[in-house]
């Protein structure tokens, strides 16, 4: 049986090995490690805050947010789920995971939304970005774990970086989609009044794309959650570590408990962010209002929330 391999063989693995080990790591590791600093900063802030916040305050706050955004049912669910998480003894881990997720999502938004806008405004950029996103989503995250570790080290922040790589595509895609899908006649109307590109963006495109962007944020959040366990492989803590440890000890119970924690967290965050997108798109979705309410939800700024009469 003949095949091309009989004639030419490409030692791709060797090439990659020497590229990473002999070139990338020796020369750029310090640079890459320096890039972690902003992530570390944000993570520390969020993490400290959540671990400082008393469990009951957090629970009440999130329940109120859920009630305001996603309705009574979700609020009730959040309440019960959070109490349950506490009772099965995973509160601290949950908070760690939450900080990690929010940090990832924060950076995904900061990177992804402008990039999405850019792709929406230029077909050429889209042409370049799209295959990269495709590959980012199809390449198994295991493949980039080792390079990430080699370049960034192990721990929470490299875990977040892996998560960002994995969770970034949807927010870019949906920002792009949202802006491109803004009704043509509205764009035309804005143009007919002599809007500049920036005015168009701020006055028309972004507000109208907000729902879709929110959907992207929601998907990004979900993908980030799905990386929690894999991030634990490179030293991130939280619920992912609980699962990983449970697996290592053949402790199905612990692994399942950690898994349930992740699922509960996922459901709560999913419903809240989903309803955020839904509602604000229909009602009065001033961009700033929406971003603000997203923020107060994502940072779970409970002090301020619970201060208001419910």
């Amino acid at each position: 049986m003949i095949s091309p391999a009989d004639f030419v063989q490409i030692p791709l693995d060797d090439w990659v090995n020497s590229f990473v080990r002999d070139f990338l790591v020796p020369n750029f590791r310090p640079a890459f490690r320096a890039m972690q600093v902003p992530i570390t900063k944000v993570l520390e802030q969020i993490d400290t805050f959540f671990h400082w916040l008393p469990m009951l305050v957090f629970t009440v706050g999130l329940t109120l947010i859920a009630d305001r955004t996603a309705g009574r049912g979700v609020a009730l669910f959040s309440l019960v789920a959070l109490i349950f998480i506490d009772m099965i003894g995973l509160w601290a881990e949950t908070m760690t995971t939450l900080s990690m997720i929010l940090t990832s999502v924060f950076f995904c938004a900061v990177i992804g939304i402008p990039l999405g806008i850019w792709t929406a405004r230029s077909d050429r950029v889209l042409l370049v970005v799209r295959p990269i996103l495709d590959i980012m989503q199809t390449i198994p995250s295991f493949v980039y774990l080792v390079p990430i570790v080699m370049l960034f080290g192990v721990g929470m922040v490299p875990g977040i970086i892996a998560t960002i790589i994995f969770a970034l595509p949807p927010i870019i895609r949906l920002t792009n989609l949202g802006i491109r899908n803004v009704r043509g006649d509205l764009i035309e109307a804005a143009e007919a009044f002599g809007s500049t590109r920036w005015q168009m963006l701020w006055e028309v495109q972004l507000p109208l794309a907000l729902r879709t962007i929110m959907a992207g944020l929601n998907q990004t959040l979900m993908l980030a959650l799905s990386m929690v366990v894999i991030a634990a492989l490179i030293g991130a803590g939280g619920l992912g570590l609980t699962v990983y440890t449970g697996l290592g000890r053949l402790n199905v119970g612990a692994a399942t408990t950690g898994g349930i924690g992740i699922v509960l967290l996922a459901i709560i965050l999913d419903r809240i962010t989903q309803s955020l997108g839904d509602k604000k798109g229909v009602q009065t979705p001033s961009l700033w209002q929406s971003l603000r309410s997203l923020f107060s939800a994502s940072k779970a700024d409970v002090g301020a929330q619970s201060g208001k009469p419910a």
Partner: protein
Amino acid sequence: AWDTGWFHSEIYKQLFEELGYSIDGPTTLDNPPFYQAVGYGDVDLWVNGWFPIHDTYRPAFEGSAEIIGAVAAGGALQGYLVDKASAEKFNIKSLADFKRDDVKEAFDRDGDGRADLVACPPGWGCEVAIDEHLTKYDLKGDINEIKASYSASMADAVAAYGAGEPILFYTWTPNWTVNELKLGKDVVWIQVPEEATEENAAKGVASCVADPCVMGFAANDIVPVANSKFLKENPAVATLLKTASIPLEDIFAQNSAMNDGADSPEDIKKQASDWIKANREMVDGWLATARGAAQ
């Protein structure tokens, strides 16, 4: 299995084949799924059990599977290593030296004020042992155990070493890590802060900062673990497992060959059959006994 096990797995496989068995595999499995699987008889046997450090998995297989014979009794070393340069620079002799601030700072890669130790994946036997050490020697505040996938953690250590940073890690031999980071040349064993006694100290470990060397771990047996029912039905295998063993030096040698690139399945096969050829006599003896038991 981790990749230190391929070689003797292959030797055993070829031996079984000479006994007339056809073997599937070897299958690659992480510790937890293996112990699970052998307990249920999905896998008949593996030859990568490390005891006593795998004692944590006993509940998973005890009753339906058992340890039988030994691949290499008492020859497997485990312990903590630091890179040679730092060991000399900071004069590190044992884990206790990591209480010193300058050492801590030098070994601190993640900036949390503690020295980073590449430990074991959560759940493995060694993870528990390391944890015990750190508690026992009151080092929790000084040393940060990286509990991640072992290869990921080591990737970090290797990369850090490559970048000229000090590293501290746990490993065991035989293992590819010591080919990556050569014992005595790149890295040296350090001790646990305990007085050397007859039981806990190993003599003649050249690459250790001290001799005798208190490595903190008793030498382990590398043992086959097999499904009991399978053994009962296949006395020849049982006998072979009981009698056979492979010298550690040979395992070391092969491991280093593997790390030099000869790591394809074909390479390993060849290394195994070469070894069998070289030790034909001994092997024939084992086989004869085994065939005898089968009668």
